[in-house]
């Protein structure tokens, strides 16, 4: 994306560059256009009949694959979920190392602006239907960092949050409860954050760019 109001110059590797081809011609490579897909996200409305869609939603709710991405101190509260004491696996929950295969993004605690960019990327690289859960007060209103220059205050402004789990920090038990609630939302067919994100794409981007000054990526990270 070319934006004249850009406050920070593009990284050198993203600047358009002149390249000599093997047969001697000179061509221009614009990395942002040539290396990244520019298409905008689509809305994927439920297309099957209600009963089938319900069945699918049930399956989705019982197979929550979390992206192993810890943004803040809350990440430490997620580890015990794998231990014998909490054993989240029995609820169909597991961690995946790649956003392509995950469908639940846990924002575990405060989110600095720098990390926000990564979170957005990761979220956009997940496949819908996908869900966002905000962990702790920091994602709700900034929490104890409400006056920090460097954290975002309201996660929902930037990513479509399906569920918040309050607390500072919430205990693993709270998380388990949170997953139960999320499952309910999914089963009810109300966890359509991905579609909301696609529908209100422009607004989301506006808000994201308002805080991320060195925006050096395409609008949507496929």
């Amino acid at each position, binding site marked *: 994306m070319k934006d004249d109001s850009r406050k920070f110059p593009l990284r050198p590797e993203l600047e358009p560059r002149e390249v000599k081809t093997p047969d001697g011609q000179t061509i221009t490579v614009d990395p942002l256009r040539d290396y990244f897909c520019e298409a905008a996200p689509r809305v994927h409305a439920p297309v099957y009949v209600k009963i089938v869609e319900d069945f*699918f939603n049930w399956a989705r709710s*019982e197979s929550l694959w979390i992206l192993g991405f810890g943004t803040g101190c809350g990440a430490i509260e997620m580890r015990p979920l794998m231990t*014998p004491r909490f054993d989240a*696996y029995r609820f*169909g929950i597991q961690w995946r190392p790649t956003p392509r295969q995950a469908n639940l993004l846990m924002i575990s605690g405060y989110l600095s602006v720098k990390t926000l960019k990564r979170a957005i990327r990761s979220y956009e690289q997940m496949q819908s239907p996908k869900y966002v859960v905000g962990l702790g007060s920091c994602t709700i209103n900034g929490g104890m960092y409400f006056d920090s220059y460097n954290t975002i205050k309201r996660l929902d402004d930037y990513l479509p949050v399906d569920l918040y789990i309050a607390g500072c920090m919430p205990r693993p038990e709270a998380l388990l409860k949170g997953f139960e609630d999320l499952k309910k939302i999914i089963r009810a067919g109300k966890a359509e954050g991905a579609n909301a994100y696609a529908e209100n794409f422009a607004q989301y981007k506006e808000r994201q760019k308002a805080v991320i000054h060195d925006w050096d990526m395409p609008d949507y990270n496929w």
Partner: protein
Amino acid sequence: MDFQWIKVAYALLTLFIVLNYGLLMTAVIQKMGARAGRRYGIRVYQNYIDLLKNYVLRSKITHGYMYYLGPVFRLTGGIGLLLFVPTIYGSEMWANFSFSGDLILALYFVFFGTLGMALGAGESGHPLSALGVSRGLSQVTSAELPFAIAVFAVALQYQTLSVTEIVAAQQGGVMSWTLFTNPFAVAAAMLGFLGSMMRAPFDVVLAPQEIPIGPPTEFHSAYLALLQTNRNIFPVAKIVIYMNLFFGGAASWPVFGIKVFLLYLVSAFVGVAFPRFRVEQSVRFFLIWGVPLAIVGLYWV
């Protein structure tokens, strides 16, 4: 040769049985692993849900044709392997398409899926996928050595390359299994088996987080679902070969179920007990332990 179309139906039935068996068995084994760690572990039907979820994801991307075809190759490899080997000894019905070729066909068909998957992972453009492929190929090719030599020892032992005939030669009691008639070859082959199961200590190929998860890093939705399907069929198909070659085969579905389960359990036990090898360590491991064992097995005949 007259081909009977009913064989297709039998094949589909075999496939159905094996798929379900695989899904359940892997869940059970995972659960056993969890129990060993004092957890409940996943639900027995969890694999079905995951599979279904992945099949019906709404959005998907593609990196190109080979990326698209990679999982197809992979699953074709798994299904093909299953169908080219007689599943149940002595049954025309469950011999499936084994009339197409013998043991050699099965051995080489293993690579069909591997190659396709590697190509698909390659086209995803992810360097870590390629890294995973590099590790996987290095490891698999060396794990293949003791296995191939052992297989050859068995073929020499029974003077045939036909799987059915090899199983036939092992009938007549436990003591006529290859396991007892040529223990070294079997030991070597089992080392190779461990190497090809992608379980610890040979799972650095998929090393989660380090190279996210290796070759399938970019795969998702139905692609991943196909791979998952394959992960439930392919090991079973592979174990069927081992079972037929070394453990007397199976004359009925219950025997089949038990033997496959036990063999699978071997790799699971080893996996629980041992840490990871680096790739070059596993390559050396197979060359230092696997190959000599296999050679002893070969000369044993």
